[in-house]
């Protein structure tokens, strides 16, 4: 029986890869207990390091599924999602990621596949770190400092990511990014459902 959960996660990962640039190598796998999918991005420039390494996004395996030939997405709660770097369990360097790796989302969950994929792009590229997000939304951890210092360090890391990965310019425009991701997601799930 075809593993649609993994097929759909592969589609989502490929869209992130398409936007972030081909210097990032993506691979999906199941967690050791089989309950989560781990998206692994190799070639990511590590914060405060000249090295490149791995970034991980872990989310429930039930996030993407097929029911009665329909592609479905189960909204992801922030506590169910984790961003790591270098190794599983090690917090991803981002002002809006907590020490245990789970992100701080404004509405606490991601409702649509497009929104979830766009969030991965924005988190890896640190586009979702703004003056308002650090001053009004506050930082989830002090890994990049707090307030103005967090913003400054995030911008420095953002530049390092852009320089190393050469992502599409649309990453800085949420509307364009979401539109692009939505079109690609819809086209790909259409191809997939043709052969169901």
């Amino acid at each position, binding site marked *: 029986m075809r593993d649609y959960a993994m*097929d759909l996660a*592969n*589609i989502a990962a*490929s869209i992130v*890869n398409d936007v972030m640039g081909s210097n990032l190598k993506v691979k999906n796998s199941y967690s050791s207990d089989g309950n989560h999918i781990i998206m692994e991005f190799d070639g990511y420039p590590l914060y405060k390091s000249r090295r490149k390494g791995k970034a991980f996004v872990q989310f429930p395996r039930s996030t993407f599924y097929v029911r009665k030939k329909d592609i479905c997405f189960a909204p992801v709660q922030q506590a169910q999602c984790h961003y790591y770097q270098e190794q599983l369990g090690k917090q991803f360097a981002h002002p809006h990621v907590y020490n245990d790796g789970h992100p701080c989302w404004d509405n606490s969950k991601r409702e649509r596949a497009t929104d979830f994929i766009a969030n991965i792009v924005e988190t890896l590229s640190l586009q979702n770190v703004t003056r308002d997000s650090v001053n009004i939304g506050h930082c989830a951890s002090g890994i990049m400092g707090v307030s103005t210092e967090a913003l400054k360090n995030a911008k420095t890391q953002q530049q390092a990511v852009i320089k190393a990965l050469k992502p599409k310019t649309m990453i800085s425009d949420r509307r364009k990014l979401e539109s692009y991701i939505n*079109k690609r997601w819809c086209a*790909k799930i259409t*191809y997939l459902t043709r052969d169901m």
Partner: protein
Amino acid sequence: MKAMIETVTGMTMTREINISDTPIHTIRAFYQEDATAASQIFSSERAIGQLMDGHIDEDRSAFELITIEGDSIRADWKTPLCNQPAIKEELARIEAEGETPTFVVSVSSLVA
């Protein structure tokens, strides 16, 4: 020109393609040169055999160029890419942006 061939589930392969070739010719040449990689774009062994014999289910198969905005432009399987104006124009736009064009390819078999 250099182009990315992408499978439905997102696996990508970089290929040198000739825009004076038809999509069907491009995919046949791909399979002849690298059967292992190319087989990932086919839904079944049967689809491979049919394409190599020049047959394809054009309704259920796809050879689509991804535009800069993320839309898909469906190519005709039996017309050279350079003779398909929408494809040719978008390839020029993509080239002007300094990006590599991506074609999403999926080949399904004809069923009786």
